[in-house]
């Protein structure tokens, strides 16, 4: 199994309540994925040139102040750190190439979860209710969020194999299902110089789609190639700077249901996750069709 959760707020007045509304959805999907959870939250864009990086450390009381000091020493620029236990969001003016390379060399125990101007990632092992509490998901504000509760089938239960997976900048994906040909995809992409961080099948799908978009496809074009090349079962929920996208494979063995009102669009594996949202009784409810792309824009 696994549970997916997506929430995009159309009504700007409600954006402070993103976490409050979305967290119960995620916790409800804990029944489908009790061992890890995570989310990508989009909180509005940094100015052109600025970047933020979500970082994951192996211990809760990591020396982030020491990391920050080293960062300033190396790059000689200002950096802001927002710390939450073993997670931190670093905001600075350095490019992803520089920061990722430096972190890998200087702090190999740290994992760069994401890079971009809009997206922060929190993910870890543990029951979704515990993970939500650990990182105070209910307090999150923003435009949209992509969340996941995991029941592992394809790779070990570790923080870096929890979803969402990211590739490039401000691009993330969560997955319910299994990809049958991740190693084929991986070999193909490694020839393009793309580096993988785990042995997880979802990472292959994420990097494949992001690679197609860097090659010039739009999201629809990339997913069309995905239908042809990704073998397996999937419901994907994809988050970008200003979009939330949902797609299911041709066999649609992995569920999804969407609820849309004037204020929001909410997506989950099952309706029970949506049942307590405000005004959901009057929402337009529907089940996404196989091989159709559903995209909502902020």
């Amino acid at each position, binding site marked *: 199994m696994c549970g997916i959760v997506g929430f995009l707020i159309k009504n700007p007045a409600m954006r402070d309540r993103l976490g409050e509304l979305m967290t119960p959805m995620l916790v409800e999907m804990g029944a489908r994925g009790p061992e890890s959870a995570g989310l990508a939250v989009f909180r509005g864009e940094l100015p052109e040139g600025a970047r933020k990086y979500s970082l994951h450390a192996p211990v809760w009381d990591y020396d982030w102040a020491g990391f920050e000091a080293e960062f300033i020493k190396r790059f000689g620029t200002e950096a802001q750190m927002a710390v939450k236990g073993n997670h931190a969001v670093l905001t600075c003016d350095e490019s992803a190439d520089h920061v990722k390379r430096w972190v890998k060399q200087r702090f190999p125990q740290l994992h760069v979860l994401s890079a971009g101007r809009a997206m922060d990632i929190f993910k870890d092992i543990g029951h979704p209710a515990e993970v939500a509490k650990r990182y105070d998901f209910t307090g999150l504000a923003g435009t949209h969020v992509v969340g996941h509760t995991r029941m592992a089938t394809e790779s070990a239960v570790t923080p870096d194999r929890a979803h969402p997976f990211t590739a490039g900048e401000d691009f993330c994906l969560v997955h319910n299902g299994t990809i049958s040909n991740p190693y084929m995809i991986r070999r193909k992409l490694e020839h393009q110089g793309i580096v993988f961080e785990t042995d997880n099948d979802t990472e292959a799908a994420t990097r494949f789609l992001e690679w197609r978009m860097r090659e010039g496809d739009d999201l629809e074009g990339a997913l069309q190639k995905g239908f042809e090349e990704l073998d397996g079962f999937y419901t994907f929920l994809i988050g970008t700077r200003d979009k939330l996208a949902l797609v299911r494979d041709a066999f649609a063995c992995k569920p999804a249901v969407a609820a849309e009102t004037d204020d929001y669009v909410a997506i989950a594996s099952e*309706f*029970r996750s949506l049942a307590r949202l405000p005004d959901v009784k009057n929402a337009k409810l529907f*089940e996404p069709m196989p091989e159709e792309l559903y995209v909502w824009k902020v």
Partner: protein
Amino acid sequence: MESVATLPQAATGKSFDLSQVPVRSLNDWLHNGLAESDIEHVDVLNPDGAHSIAVGINAPVKVDIRGHAGYYCAGMNKFADLTVHGNVGWGVAENMMSGSVRVKGFASESAGASGHGGLLVIEGDASLRCGISMKGIEIVVGGRVGDFSAFMAQAGTLVVCGDAGDALGDSLYEAVIYVRGKIKSLGADARVEPMSEQDYDKLGVLLKRAGFNHDPKEFKRVASARTLYHWNADANQEY
């Protein structure tokens, strides 16, 4: 959705509010308390997508589920008449034996899967694999059905008032499908056949029972060509 407050609360009625009690207490009472009671009608409030609501009933009782139900609602039903005033998740009325289940909204995948008997009415659309492996159940869908519907259906009738998706009736046995709208594609061994007088009569009765006014003349019949009944060594896995 009807307002629950205005419903008559007869002495022969009982209600379970699933925001207050677990599904298990409802099902336990339906299995062990119902038979000794005078209750003829059960209201289920705030179902909120919970799984396995009112499964395994084995007595004549009327059940109204007032909201959206989750997976396997009314599974294995025998004798009871259930109405879901909302949508249902996967596997509604799976393996139903008798009685009836009416869904006022839409049904997710595998509606009526492997059902042996009874009547399942889905007033909205039904998703993929509707009536998969059905074994005698009658299913009437007011809207469309998704891909792979009536896959390996052995006996019974599937009526689709809207369109049908890909691979309709793949590997059909003796179940018969009537479709009013367009068929995207037929599955292996399924074929469109002419409607007989018997078909019109049977379909007319079924549509009436299900509460639809369509003219049976608007439907086409899909049934098995029976070419898969015997192993063909020359088929070379090409069906």
